[in-house]
């Protein structure tokens, strides 16, 4: 079938501001949007800039606005979309070229929540730490995050205040706060409880809709809010 695309293009060396360009390519209905972009790049216009790698929704490279929604280009089939399919970069980050945005501020926020297991006790020798399946389940959902940025860039609170740490970073904090092995919960309070922390979340649920891994982001943020309210993340007395 013929598939029409409208892509928001921006070349920093030539363009003052982004402009739309239209393309048409021959595709199978079951092809991914990413296949269409690759066809355009390979056959029609080699100057199209986008990031992509795994092409099946696990690496998080190709989040973009597709028909106005944040989606991974490799996880949506062309047959499911009305045409022309409009493609834009994610909102709220600086556009570096076409669909490529500056992810550094996003990763800076990720790093700010200390996204790693904080250990105080010695590691056990020649064996694993024990963790019950029930304790493992408490943070299962937030381990799925692939850091694609779809949630953060769909969040009105983030658009209004780019300093907001954002849903993705809170998801990462949740993954450790609710891990029974983590011993540094209080180290994340300053960022999460601060003026640009979790309280900026207005439970709009855009993030839940945007997450390509099906993480219940708003629920995770709610659990972090509750833990902060109850003082569960305060330093041990």
């Amino acid at each position: 079938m013929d598939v029409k695309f409208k892509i928001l293009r921006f070349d920093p060396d030539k363009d003052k501001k982004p402009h739309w360009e239209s393309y048409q390519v021959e595709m199978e209905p079951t092809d991914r949007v990413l296949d269409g972009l690759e066809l355009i790049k390979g056959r029609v216009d080699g100057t199209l800039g986008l990031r992509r790698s795994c092409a099946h929704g696990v690496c998080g490279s190709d989040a973009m606005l597709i028909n106005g929604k944040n989606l991974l280009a490799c996880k949506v089939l062309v047959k499911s979309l009305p045409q022309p399919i409009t493609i834009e970069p994610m909102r709220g980050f600086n556009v570096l070229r076409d669909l490529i945005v500056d992810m550094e501020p996003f990763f800076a926020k990720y790093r700010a929540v200390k996204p790693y297991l904080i250990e105080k006790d010695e590691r056990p020798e020649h064996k694993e730490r024990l963790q019950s399946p029930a304790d493992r389940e408490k943070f299962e959902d937030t381990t799925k995050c692939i850091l694609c940025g779809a949630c953060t860039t769909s969040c009105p609170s983030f658009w209004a205040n780019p300093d907001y740490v954002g849903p993705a970073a809170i998801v990462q904090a949740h993954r450790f706060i609710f891990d029974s092995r983590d011993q540094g919960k209080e180290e994340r309070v300053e960022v999460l409880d601060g003026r640009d922390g979790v309280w900026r979340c207005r439970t709009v649920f855009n993030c839940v809709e945007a997450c390509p891994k099906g993480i219940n982001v708003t629920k995770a943020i709610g659990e972090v809010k509750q833990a902060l309210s109850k003082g569960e993340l305060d330093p041990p007395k």
Partner: protein
Amino acid sequence: MATHQFDGIIVGAGGAGLMAALQASKTAKIAVLSKLYPTRSHTGAAQGGIGAALGNSEEDNWEWHMFDTVKGGDYLVDQDAAEIMCQEAVEAVYELEHMGLPFNRNADGTIAQRPFGGHTRDHGKAPVRRSCYAADRTGHMILQTLYQQCIKQGVTFFNEYHVIDLLTNNGAACGVVAVEIATGEIHTFHSKGVMFATGGSGRMFKITSNALTLTGDGMAVLYRKGLPLEDMEFFQFHPTGIYKMGILITEAARGEGGILRNGSGERFMERYAPTLKDLAPRDMVSRAIHQELRAGKGVNGKDYVHLDLTHLPAKTIHEKLPDITDFVETYMGLDPTKDLIPIQPTAHYAMGGIPTNSNAEVVIDEKNTPMPGLYAAGECACVSVHGANRLGTNSLVDIVVFGRRGGKAMAQFVQKAALQPLPADPEAPARARIDKLFNSTGTEVVARIREELQAEMMDKASVYRIEADLKKMLEIIEHLKKKYESVRLIDHGKKFNMELLEAFELEHLLQLAQVTVTAALARKESRGAHSRDDYPKRDDANFLKHSLAYPEGSGVRLSYKPVSITRFQPQERKY
């Protein structure tokens, strides 16, 4: 032009590169370069698990794991290296857990384990639960966990830097040259140690589970410098790729009880591997599927068979195989609890690669002489722990064990080694490569050459091979290489010029395909993943040896070196 100086450079930020970085950066000044963001690396796509004889669910020991690895690799495995890997796998898994990896757990809180292809109790008696897993996204968890630890440790990263040349001087490695993708600027990284951990080259085939970025860059960069590649004729086809797309459906689907069925609904693996059945090693299952297809037993006369999970409890599928459930729903519109899944073998893993010893030092000749300061680990390397066919889960074992050993070895090396001076005009070859592409007046297009290469390699050099096809394939590669000489870029910009990057990648794929086919043509036997229709038997008398391929003129020169055999003498391989 910019020059950076470090003790050690690690190229690639998947599991092997990050593990090496964690080790080496404890005592040395290390930088990690990746053409991607680290969390985009393909380690994240590994699904089913990491094998280690923890014995949490039933009796197991590393020697059984080693036996399975050697037999699975059709006795081409270097047994000294396999012994190290299977022994150290156990501590490596504990270390990953200590770093925070969220493994699934048993009721007693220990790491959960499940069966996997070719992993057996007591030298082949029955399947054993050895694969330690985190649902069906074990690789994602490993990649995330290692990257988290790198952040904690403050490891230095240069993200989106594409390495296109290795620098050497006085017979030792002394750095790399990279293109900064965001700006197009060329950077020289001057160092005492260099490690390549750049992953595989599955994109030389049309149907592959590999990321679009898996173009064998590390292997090709070294090969271009005249260094050899080992056992490149051995490329694994995973039996269960999603039909036409190649997206991986983990072997854990069969580990959890899934069954392969042909067009008439028959569980055909019972005929090919009476003991392990659907959990036979990947090379055997992929061949069995092809034989069914050749016998006209595909589904509806087409070139696929079915993976059947419909008899499994929906809870098992949703809890232990959630990602593949998502893939099947997203890409095929099917529900694996109710529908049969159309699958075909998909190009999955390069057993061959940059020859190394068990400290991940790159060795450059038949006598295993190391090049000072040069290391390789993970899929781009050939230790060789996978021999002619890798067992499922052993890729993750490999990256963790040899990434760590390589990182340690490099850290020790840079403590005592002197920094070699840079060669004169270190960026000249890289600049010449770029200028040639930008100044070309030809008419050829990168994407079209790549498509032709992928389709022809799939047709002529995949699961089954025969002399006439391989010879024809070499001619096609010659032709495509000529076309590549006339490639013209439409994009002449500097910032995020992805067309330039893809041109380098295509050149790498063409070179590696030529090596693969040349080595496959010369290996007149069938062993592991290398199956010759015209030489259907394994031939230990003539071919129990590793191939080494060197560039020579526009062609390939082959040489061979012996296999390390310590505990297990070659036997007939039955399951």
